[in-house]
């Protein structure tokens, strides 16, 4: 069904936007590096692809006059969420451009702000792309090229938003959101149900937290040693 497809794509776009936001947070800080800029590029390109796909799916039903009222309301809801997501993405992209220009990685005019965030964010980007892991393959002057490309992409997204406003007339204020206040407190099982269809693996298989694994092995070793000692004591006595 077209609606389920749209919903799935929208969830993917939402995920990509959230991950992009999370990555943009660290530009200019101590975690900023060439890898981060690459991850940003990949994430936003994925987000843009998804946006184009959703737009292609959503525009025909909304321009179809003969659609039933309930169907139309459903599509309008999706449209409002989609355009909101796209605006968030555009704002974050602009912010990324501004921050990226202020904090260039090479020929550093300014040192990076030591924020205490270290460690890579490749997990975040991989999540956005729904992939297991990410390969980094950029050249040396990647960030300068990237900023030029980012500028072009911002213009494209801006044009897309403009176009969307012109082509489809959805008055935002008439749309009734389905989620009530406090809906996010309901367990994420309900969210998982809606997003499971069509979207690939969300969780990573390996243990994320090495320290927890280490603690577990030490504990089991100590337990084994204690059992062995108890057996020896029992045998001796």
């Amino acid at each position, binding site marked *: 069904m077209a609606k389920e497809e749209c919903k799935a794509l929208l969830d993917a776009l939402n995920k990509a936007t959230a991950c992009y936001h999370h990555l943009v947070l660290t530009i200019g800080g101590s975690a900023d590096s060439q890898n981060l800029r690459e991850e940003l590029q990949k994430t936003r390109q994925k987000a843009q692809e998804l946006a184009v796909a959703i737009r292609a799916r959503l525009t025909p039903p909304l321009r179809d006059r003969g659609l039933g009222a309930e169907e139309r309301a459903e599509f309008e809801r999706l449209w409002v*969420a989609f355009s909101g997501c796209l605006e968030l993405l555009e704002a*974050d992209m602009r912010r990324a451009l501004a921050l990226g220009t202020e904090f260039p990685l090479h020929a550093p005019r300014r040192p990076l702000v030591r924020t205490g965030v270290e460690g890579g964010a490749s997990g975040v980007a991989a999540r956005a792309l729904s992939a297991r892991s990410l390969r980094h393959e950029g050249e040396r002057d990647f960030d300068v090229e990237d900023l030029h490309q980012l500028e072009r992409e911002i213009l494209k997204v801006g044009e897309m938003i403009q176009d969307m406003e012109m082509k489809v007339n959805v008055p935002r204020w*008439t749309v009734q959101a389905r989620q009530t*206040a*406090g809906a996010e407190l309901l367990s994420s099982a309900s969210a998982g149900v809606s997003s499971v269809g069509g979207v690939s693996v969300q969780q990573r298989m390996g243990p994320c*937290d090495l320290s927890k694994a280490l603690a577990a092995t030490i504990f089991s070793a100590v337990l084994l040693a204690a059992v062995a000692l108890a057996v020896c004591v029992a045998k001796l006595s």
Partner: protein
Amino acid sequence: MAAGPAPLGGHPRAQKPHLSKMERVVVSMQDPDQGVKMQSQRLLITVIPHAVTGNDVVEWLIQKYCIAEDEALHLGTLLVQHGYLYPLRDPRRLLLQPDETPYRFQTPYFWMSTLWPAAELDYAIYLAKKNIRKQGALVDHEKAHYDQLHRKINHTWDLVVMQAREQLRAAKQRRKGDRLVIACQEQTYWLVNRPPPGVPSVLEQGPERGSCTARQVQMTKTVDFYKREIECCRKALGRTRVKSSVCLEAYLKFSSQRGPHDPLLSGCLPSNPWVTDDDTYWAMNAPSVAVPTKLRVEQWAFSFRELLEDPVGRAHFMDFLQTEFSAENLSFWEACEELRHGGQAQVPALVDAVYQQFLAPGAARWVNIDSRTMERTLEGLGRPHRHVLDDAQLHIYMLMKKDSYPRFLKSDLYKDLLAEAVVPLETKRRVFPFMWKPRHSSPSLALLPTSTSGEPEAAAGSPGGGDGET
């Protein structure tokens, strides 16, 4: 942030200068050789680097800018209040303590910026995330904001919930230390931008001054960019500039001339109605009053515009012109004013009446206008609109100003008016026996710093005296 600078029409906002300066200070603190000393923060098992103590910050500021300790402390507190540094132990107390309390720097994305003001949608997402993390236990004012936002941006609430969940899941992909730091950063950002009740907001700015406009970041400098730059420079060259010495002289002259007339600076006689509940002052200075006050008559000598704007002054000026047989000038001027400010439907009739009375050759009250202006006016009379007589009106105005007005000021009529003008007496205040200075009925604000000892008594004395008077 959801609402970036509005590029489609409207001026993009500029970053406020004080914020740019603070950013420069923060960046110079990051210098690996000459920056602030950093330490590591140790929580149970995680170690998070890049913590600074308040003491180090203050010392660095003293050393770098050669300032005293008080000033360094104040500057450091400003940095913390605007969110560039945040305390690690007690995140809600935004001030800099010059001891071992640890602080950390805020990430540039969350630096306060007038270019990227905090948006409602982002705040809603933040509150939703906090709601999830704390299982619904939000602080009171946050709960109130949450409900309010739910009503205001109800149509995007689906997006809010989706984004909140996804952002939390994205954050889980990071190490624990990073996750903690990022959560602290976001919390500080919202503490600064949406302060809890009772905390003054650093965001409050005065009225917008739209003079500084900023452009968006431009990586590729196209032809359009250079064309805009050239246009901008050309306009800047063409602007008239006045030397500040000239400006300041005019300002001083204005202040010294108007000082005694200002009711706030020099007190108002007989008494300030707001203080004593006695509105004699307003009655005596009503627009049309039989005998004007002396200050008012003196004001007519400041400029011709003052004279014309005061109805009493205008009436006396008309009398004077009648003695000089040039009253038609002022009548013509008044008729033109009526045309300019009157109703649209009356415009053709009024223009015709004015022409018949003042401008036609052989008219009853013919005004003396030079030939060029007369030609232009007569041409325009064919298609009458409310500004068709503007040129003629201006000509007559300048004539009166240069010719009749100086004569009026030197005339006997004016001198008599000055002599007859009323100077109201100050209402007598009852002088308490233990106060050794009689109160002025409206304490002059300009005297506040010097007479601080007298002020509280004045404040206590005047309402008490006012009650006694009425």
